[in-house]
């Protein structure tokens, strides 16, 4: 039990020192925001707010998702393959602490990613929100990133170190494109509009879009994300048990 803060600190620092990881997770959403800001008129009205604000939320969501999928998925699969997870099992750390720490690390990393995208919106996009709205937006996006964190960990458990990159890339593409993070859902072909309703990325961003439009976050969106988190959490627990019960040769 006492080892948990030590291990968490170790994991967070190790992740932050990884230049490529930080570059991708922070760089992608910031660069995309700057690139696509002028795809529409920044002041164009959309879903009760302006494009520059709407798209800032989209890219913060994208960043949160990329950060979680890589923090959990890619690294976990690599560490399972290298044997590090087995080595940890023969320390005094309780067996559940590896997953818990991965999810916690993911949550800790997601916060600055969201903040950097928001800062880009403020400084480059000229997004103006009340301090309360900024705070609520950040909090809502951060708290609901839990479902991405559990998705990331699950991916790390089901994928091998070879399949994890294509899997994470595919998920990133599907979830962001079909979830309306790049093209707003009403502009998507009709079939995809229906698909969006099933994706956590769409419901995640919807919470943020509601906040910046001055509406209360939708209970339906929160419900879907919670359901995702529960199902993914159970799946993670199950995969962890399977991994654990394996004798090792």
């Amino acid at each position, binding site marked *: 039990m006492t*080892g948990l803060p030590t*291990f968490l600190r170790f994991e967070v620092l190790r992740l932050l020192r990884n230049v490529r990881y930080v570059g991708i997770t922070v760089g992608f959403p910031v660069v995309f925001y700057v690139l696509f800001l002028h795809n529409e008129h920044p002041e164009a009205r959309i879903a009760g707010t302006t494009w520059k604000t709407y798209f800032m939320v989209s890219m913060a969501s994208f960043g949160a998702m990329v950060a979680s999928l890589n923090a959990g998925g890619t690294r976990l699969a690599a560490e399972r393959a290298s*044997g590090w997870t087995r080595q940890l099992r023969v*320390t005094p750390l309780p067996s559940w602490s590896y997953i818990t720490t991965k999810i916690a690390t993911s949550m800790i990393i997601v916060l600055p990613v969201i903040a950097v995208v928001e800062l880009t919106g403020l400084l480059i996009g000229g997004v103006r929100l009340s301090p309360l709205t900024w705070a609520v937006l950040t909090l809502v996006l951060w708290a609901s990133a839990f479902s991405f964190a559990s998705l990331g960990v699950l991916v790390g458990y089901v994928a091998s170190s070879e399949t994890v990159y294509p899997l994470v890339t595919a998920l990133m593409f599907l979830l962001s494109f079909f979830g309306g993070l790049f093209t707003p859902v009403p502009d998507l072909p009709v079939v995809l509009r229906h698909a969006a309703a099933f994706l956590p990325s769409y419901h995640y961003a919807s919470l943020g879009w509601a906040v910046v439009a001055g509406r209360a976050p939708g209970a339906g969106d929160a419900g879907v994300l919670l359901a995702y988190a529960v199902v993914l959490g159970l799946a993670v627990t199950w995969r962890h048990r399977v991994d654990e019960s394996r004798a*090792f040769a």
Partner: protein
Amino acid sequence: MGLRGGPPRPAEPGGPALRFSGVVHRYRSIVALDHLDLEVARGETLALLGPNGAGKSTAISILLGIQRAQEGEVSVLGTDPRSAMASGKVGAMLQVGGGSGLPHGVKVRDLLSMTARLYRNPAPVARTLARSGLTELADRQTQRLSGGQAQRVRFALAIAGDPELVFLDEPTIAMDVEGRRSFWAMMRQFSTEGRTVVFATHHLDEVDAVADRIVVIRKGAVVANGAASTIKAAVPTRRVRFASKGVDPARLRELDGVNAACVRGSQVVLDSLDADATVRALVASGVSFTDIEVTGADLEQAFVALTSDLAEAHTVDDAVAPAYSAPIRRPPASRTAP
């Protein structure tokens, strides 16, 4: 109650470091452990041998608390394996297959100091680095280590918590000869400080040099238990060598007691379970020979004899059967109920 000879040990609080009694473990229909009994005294260095599939891995995962024994009792440092592991008195170095077994993106020193902090009474990091020959590599990133260096780091991880009992599974598997030599020197130093060491290996020469005692497992039960010399002496295999020209190996295999025959040029080597009978049969056969020599089994031959199907009925145990010496050729397929 010491298992070894020599002067009696001081009182051992909490009994043996490790004890398996009547442990049974099955995977569906496969019996991995079949009433395994094993005891390791505190301060002892024990080698655990067995062919693949003998139940070693299962025994290891039970003693480390990764799996629970289905039947029988297991105690590690006087408690159950999981509590022993959680208490921080057990360290382990596992096999890692193809990977390094280490997380990337961290310096050796930082990895060791994090690991040390997971334990209640860890060794100072500088001492762990010195003990595992890593002082010069302390500032190296883990992904820049060679295979042998990574292996030393994994040894360092096993001892970072200053454990009373250390378990090492194939600790020298990726090392060259020099690496292995210095590894066992470090290990020796570590074990003389009163710690219990249990290791599994396939390098039988290491076993001979390092272990106080050897336990051989076969089909989930102990088939040999004793010092290397005891085990070698107990196995009836002898090697008969001589020089002879143009001799037919098939004919040599027919001789009494011969297990295997090998002819290279004029050099003949016979593995025999009854050297006396073999030599008599050789003389009677009329094969001409010179320079005959009979030698005892080395540990590798003993291991093969104990774990091959020919050895179905062998059991060597210091305590139970002090001297196994009946040189009887056993029918290959005899199956004796345990």
